[in-house]
């Protein structure tokens, strides 16, 4: 991908010295994984008297895929608008690629791709014409643009529809077109507001594969989504709820954080009080839930170490263990639990809303 970008810019007439400097800079950036691409501290945003974003702090490092997950109306898009410079924060500080978003330099803008939530391209232009237009906005000349457009059309599988008007293609195809327009100039940092909405699972998978490919090349992606299962594709995830970032971390960390540790499911032929006492007193066990059908669910500090020890303890008290294995709770349940805990810890402005994850 970076080669394509380099070729494109050479043909777009960028001076050689500048090109070389930028190339060197990229290499330096590539070996500096801790560099913050996005640094937001205590961001606030209000529309009139209504606060929509409160005390938002997040850092995104170079090459990361950062997923901002949350229900509709939680402030994800507002966050993207603030990071893209569409909106001025009411409070706090933010830098993206080292610059305040509302004062991005032209060079920085060339490195940013933006895919909005709605379809904002021209419905009366064909798929290809829209991409040419987007390429033109980023200064790609005709020949490099032509080559790059072919690549992105292939990536989003719109090659056959390239001569169709945007108006006449399906909603899912329009999302793919919007994504193609956002990456046609091969950006270093991509803001994608719900890029996989309305896409079928196969294409969603392909897009995430592409996103991971971009990330592997050192590009940074800031992606919002309502699909909680997509959290697993992200390097780090922020959970937004009612204008607040209520949890942030690697997916596994969030899972552990939600349940207080790892989960182990044990199926016995029959469960007794003796069995429950045996596992509850075992080292590393934090919590035990028992069901009448002989199933136990335990929260442990480390599932891998706990499972053989638990099986041994149960057999010592004469129990017959049918199965014992670590359990991976779905992210749906992880986030429901995190939101419930957040609700218990503080009442958000406007009251707790019923959400469906």
């Amino acid at each position: 991908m970076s080669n394509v970008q380099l070729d494109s810019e050479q043909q777009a007439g960028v001076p050689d010295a500048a090109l070389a400097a930028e190339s060197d800079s990229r290499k330096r950036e590539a070996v500096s994984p801790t560099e913050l691409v996005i640094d937001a501290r205590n961001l606030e945003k209000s529309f009139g008297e209504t606060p929509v974003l409160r005390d938002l702090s997040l850092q995104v490092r170079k090459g990361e895929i950062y997923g901002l997950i949350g229900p509709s109306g939680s402030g994800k898009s507002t966050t993207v608008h603030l990071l893209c410079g569409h909106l001025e924060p009411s409070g706090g500080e933010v830098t993206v690629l080292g610059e305040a978003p509302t004062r991005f330099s032209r060079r920085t803008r060339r490195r940013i791709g933006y895919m909005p939530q709605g379809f904002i391209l021209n419905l009366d232009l064909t798929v290809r014409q829209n991409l040419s237009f987007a390429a033109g906005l980023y200064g790609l000349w005709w020949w490099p643009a032509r080559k790059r457009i072919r690549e992105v059309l292939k990536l989003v599988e719109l090659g056959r529809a390239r001569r169709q008007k945007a108006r006449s293609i399906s909603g899912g195809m329009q999302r793919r077109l919007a994504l193609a327009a956002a990456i046609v100039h091969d950006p270093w940092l991509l803001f994608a507001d719900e890029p996989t909405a309305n896409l079928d699972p196969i294409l969603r998978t392909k897009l995430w594969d592409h996103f991971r490919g971009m990330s592997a090349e050192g590009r940074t992606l800031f992606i919002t989504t309502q699909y909680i299962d997509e959290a697993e594709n992200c390097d780090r995830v922020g959970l937004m709820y009612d204008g607040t970032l209520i949890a942030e971390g690697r997916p596994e960390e969030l899972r552990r954080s939600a349940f207080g540790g790892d989960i182990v499911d044990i199926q016995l032929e029959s469960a007794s009080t003796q069995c429950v006492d045996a596992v509850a007193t075992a080292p590393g066990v934090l919590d035990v839930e028992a069901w009448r059908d002989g199933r136990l669910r335990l929260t442990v500090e480390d599932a891998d170490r706990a499972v053989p020890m638990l099986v041994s303890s149960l057999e010592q008290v004469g129990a017959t263990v049918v199965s014992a294995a670590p359990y991976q709770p779905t992210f749906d349940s992880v986030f429901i639990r995190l939101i419930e805990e957040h609700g218990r810890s503080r009442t958000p402005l406007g009251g707790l809303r019923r959400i469906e994850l």
Partner: protein
Amino acid sequence: MLSLIFGPLVIMIAFGLGSNITYPTPRAIVVTPPGPADQALMQDYRDQIQKYLRVAEYTSDGEYARRQLARNAVDTVVILPPDPYEAISRGQHAEIQVLYNEIDPTRSWVIPDYASSVESEINRQILMQGAERQRPALQAASQQLDAAIRALDAADAARLGNNRDEALQRVREARQSVAGLRDILDTAGPEAGALSPTLGLIQERLRDDEERLGESEQSLTAQATVQPDIASMRGRLQSLKETVDRLTPVRAEVLVSPVKVRSQYVAPLRPDVITFFAPAMLALLIQHTAVSLGSLSMVRERLADTFELYMVAPISNFQMLIGKYVANTVFTLAMTGALVGVLVGFFGVPIFGDAWRMGLTLLLLTLTSVGLGFAISLLASSERQAVQFAMLLLLGIVFFSGFALPVDALRQPALSFSYAMPATYGADLLQDVMLRGLPGRELFILVLGALSLVLFLVCLWLLRWRTHAG
């Protein structure tokens, strides 16, 4: 979009091809006087009236004619006087009544105007007839004056030969001739027509001369020592005769209308309706198309959040606006080229002036109109509002840019509206360049240029306002 731009074009072409700005001849009923009348005079009336009015009917029933007028069966009723000479002899106007009930204010002038023309023509005819009738009287007057002068010559000779009786006799003859001349002129009466003022003057002088001759006669009779000034009297009568002789050979038509205006059309072209309105229509369509395109293009992108893309992309507001201007201007100019082709090739509208000057006018008009469209686009809160603004401007052009009414016929505040429209300047300039072969007013070119620049700056400011991070 197509209907918004080309709809008015189709309407304008239909209007140009189908409209007729000449008014139809009014329909009239002529009410002739009941009973016997001067048939020759009545025929004159009819002849004159038919030149200006379409006579549906002649009737002597005035009430019937009024009823027909009341139910709008005719446009006017003309009531002829029974005996015009009788009224004239009484020192009054002979009145022809013209009744009409036109309620359309743009046409209410037609009947009075035609009536005025009929009045002038009839008066002229009467004056000509009167003048023609005076010709024999003038000839007789000349002869009488000749006789009087000859008598005075004889009287003077007799007086110098101390033949007082002979002199007296000749003076009496001269006085009788003058008195006879006065009788001739008196009988010419009111029909003297155009000669009336001249004859009145002559009569006055004759009265004076007759008195002087009477005094001469008395001095001769009384053997007075004071000698009558016969030579002076002769001189006066001779002068009078010269005046009468000058009038006698002049044709009655010349006497009646001594001054005649001859108008001459010197423009390079006498345009028909389509040709005359073609430049204004071109200006109107350019403004309308550019405003409609401009107003919709920006508002659509603004409301569809395409501006978000521009705000992230590495382009400045200035570059974005320039891009928009170029696209819209090129499109509008292409359409203008096609329109000019149709006007010249199909409708035969000429272009007498300089092509570069016309090109400059079209370019400035397009730039100004595109700017106007963008300003609307950046101010409107919805596409519908932008379309409404564009249509309001179209109405404004039709009424205030000189298309429907000449600009110099407008008063404030309409005049200000007029000069706020780029099409007003464009129509004027294009008319000069295309139909008169003139370069057009420099001031208007400068105003269009200034307007386009100001609108560009306004649009740039509005764009910055709209793309400012909120």
